[in-house]
């Protein structure tokens, strides 16, 4: 059974990069463009990992993370936060709220896979 990854980012470019990073692995990718859509997708799909942007319209990533942690059915889903802000306070806040890890933009696809691989098992797709 494929590992379910939920990418929540208002940038289609970043969602594409996340999808490309997990492309070689046996993963099923789901996408959402803001925190509100992300919560709905998380409730529906129960992903194994959420890759969550911080700065988004409608509902930002920090608010979505807080709501995830308040929901008993979603609170154990691990979250990797993507942020353009590397400041100590920002990173500390993300950690306090319960994100498993964070990645500061700009990032390489390989960095995302390394971080994800520490949290969930990633199996390479079988070649035909």
């Amino acid at each position, binding site marked *: 059974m494929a590992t379910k990854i939920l990418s929540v980012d208002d940038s289609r470019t970043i969602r594409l990069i996340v999808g490309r990073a997990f492309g070689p692995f046996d993963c099923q990718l789901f996408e959402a463009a803001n925190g509100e859509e992300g919560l709905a997708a998380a409730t529906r799909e129960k992903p194994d990992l959420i890759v969550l942007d911080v700065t988004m*319209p409608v509902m930002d990533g920090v608010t979505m993370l807080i709501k995830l942690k308040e929901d008993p059915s979603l609170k154990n889903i691990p979250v990797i936060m993507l942020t353009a802000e590397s*400041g100590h306070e920002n990173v500390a806040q993300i950690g306090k709220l319960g994100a498993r890890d964070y990645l500061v933009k700009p990032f390489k696809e390989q960095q995302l896979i390394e971080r994800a691989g520490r949290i969930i098992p990633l199996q390479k797709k079988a070649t035909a």
Partner: protein
Amino acid sequence: MNESNSMTPKPEISKAGEFLTEHVVTVFETMLSVQVAPLKKSSAESLEERVTGTAGFGGEGVRGVLYLHLSTTTANRFAAIMLGLADDVAPADGDVNDVIGEMTNMLTGGLKSWLTNSGFPCAISTPGIIRGTSYVIDSPPEVESQKLVFESAAGPVAVEIQMQFD
């Protein structure tokens, strides 16, 4: 909590420019595998048909805007690289806007971190895009500004910051 106050020395905009020069090189190298090299002289005015990414920042004692200026041709090339398109496939304008917006977000996020570490914590806005021909962005005299210009194989890259400290 990192708080600014009237005792926090105002950072010089040239120092912000030095930080951004390194950050621009890192962002383009990491996300696009494109080398950009700083130039001494500004040539942003020569960009005619242009795509400009813009994002604001503001907080305790500081506010401002960052602009990323590219010619349409250069913006299209960078978008094609980021999206993994073949050389003969032109990206849609919406996709170019998204790529340039995201690059602007990364540059502004870096500047926000630098300002916060300098004693001026602030927040950043989601990015926007301006498209047009031969426009000039001006600012009131009390606003400090700096323009950084870079060369790349895909064309010139200009980053402009306007900042005001209370």
